[in-house]
């Protein structure tokens, strides 16, 4: 996963043990986003943040609970747009 992506994700994971005050914890592809605080409203805010940061637009069919389940599944959806033949959309 891109470091820009994990850094962007971090502030959304409000329940990351020790994440707020202590050492930054590792975000792995298996990191469970829902368990760590990303509810349906946070998912929308995270989506906007990702689309702004990477200048991409995630397709509607990717915007489901499965995509937002783990850091890895969300990154896969992001990465697919970064490498899409048409390239990133203009910011």
């Amino acid at each position, binding site marked *: 996963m891109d470091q820009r992506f994990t850094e962007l994700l971090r502030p959304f994971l*409000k*329940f*990351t*043990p020790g994440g707020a005050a202590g050492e930054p914890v590792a975000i792995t592809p298996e990191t*469970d986003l*829902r*368990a*760590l*605080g990303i*509810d*349906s*409203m946070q*998912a*929308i805010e995270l*989506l906007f943040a990702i689309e702004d940061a990477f200048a991409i637009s995630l397709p*509607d069919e990717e*915007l*489901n*609970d*499965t995509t937002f389940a783990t850091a890895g599944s969300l990154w896969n959806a992001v990465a697919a747009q970064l490498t899409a033949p048409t390239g990133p959309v203009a910011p």
Partner: protein
Amino acid sequence: MTGTFAPAERTARVAKVAEEHLARTDREAAFPVEALAEMRDSGLLGLLVPAAYGGLGGGPADLIEAGMALGRADTSVGMILAMHCQQAAAVVRYGSEPLRADLLPRIAAGQVYLASVTTEAGKGGHLLSAEAQLGEEAPGAALTVDRFAPIVTGGAHADGFLITMRSPGAVSENQVSLVYADRAQLDISGSGDWQPLGMRASHSLPLKLTGSVPAHQLLGGHGGFHEIAATVFGPLAHLGWSAVWLGTAAGALSRVLRLLRSPESRGRFDITSELLLTRLSRARQRLDTVHALLRHTLAMVESDGDLTETRSQLLLNSLKITASEQCHAAVEDLIDAVGLRHGYLKDSPTRLELALRDLRSAALNYSNDRLHLADGRLALRDQGVHFA
């Protein structure tokens, strides 16, 4: 489902008993024990239990047929069955084999009526979060339950409970586990009085539950409730409840039409009144709309697609919101259509007064306000607006 089981006949038996006791259960806010006894005897509690476990092997289509039929007789009884069936379906799909082997035959035999314990003080109706934490000394060890719930429909009469609790070791309230407990495995204390506007026979009391259950009574693994809610609880709740509400409003319309057409009433109502005709039309239009939406949503659920998809969740929520609003509005139309004597008084054979009180709960029973917030977020995920 094959004709051998004749679920319609079983439902009709329950509806008949429910209707016999309706006036008293509403007046006294008493649980419909006679109708529950008939659900046990008729096998209807096993409606969604597979035949291999002794049940009727029914599916969502059978649930909505039963819901509509019972709703015509008594909304409370219809909701009691619909909620029980949604619990049973969760055991069928997510129960461990030892739990299924123990529990499903008892449900099918009418020995176990299931209640749902998902409400919790202080979480404002959030189904998918939990405060009280499930105890687990070690993985695979017994699970300890210590839980207060402000509203448990039929809690005083249930033989088993499906209980949501925060998962052991959870770091957030979003990690929720679902466990089954027999009444005998729990110490249950209840308190308080049930004196609602409508749904008076659903007898929903606050309960405190404490006890310990073996690990195999966990459904869907720790943290598994989110998936159970998305695939079983949500879809079957919205289908089942909407069917019951539609049945209630359809029963009300039917009784109004019988009144208008009865020989005794001729001359009391001007059936050429354009206002009366328009109000009847409006009520009927609302019910046809709900019925069409119910059938369409049923077809989606039966197609075995992914019910967690955005468009599927939106449709399921739309069904619940629409049914709760339109069934209530249809009864309002009918009250205006027939006026004070038959629209507002308890002793009218139309039972519009009871239907209106019962259906007023529909928007609150999993609040439409909360569903609209969820739907607004879901809508933002689907800028192309794709329909299920």
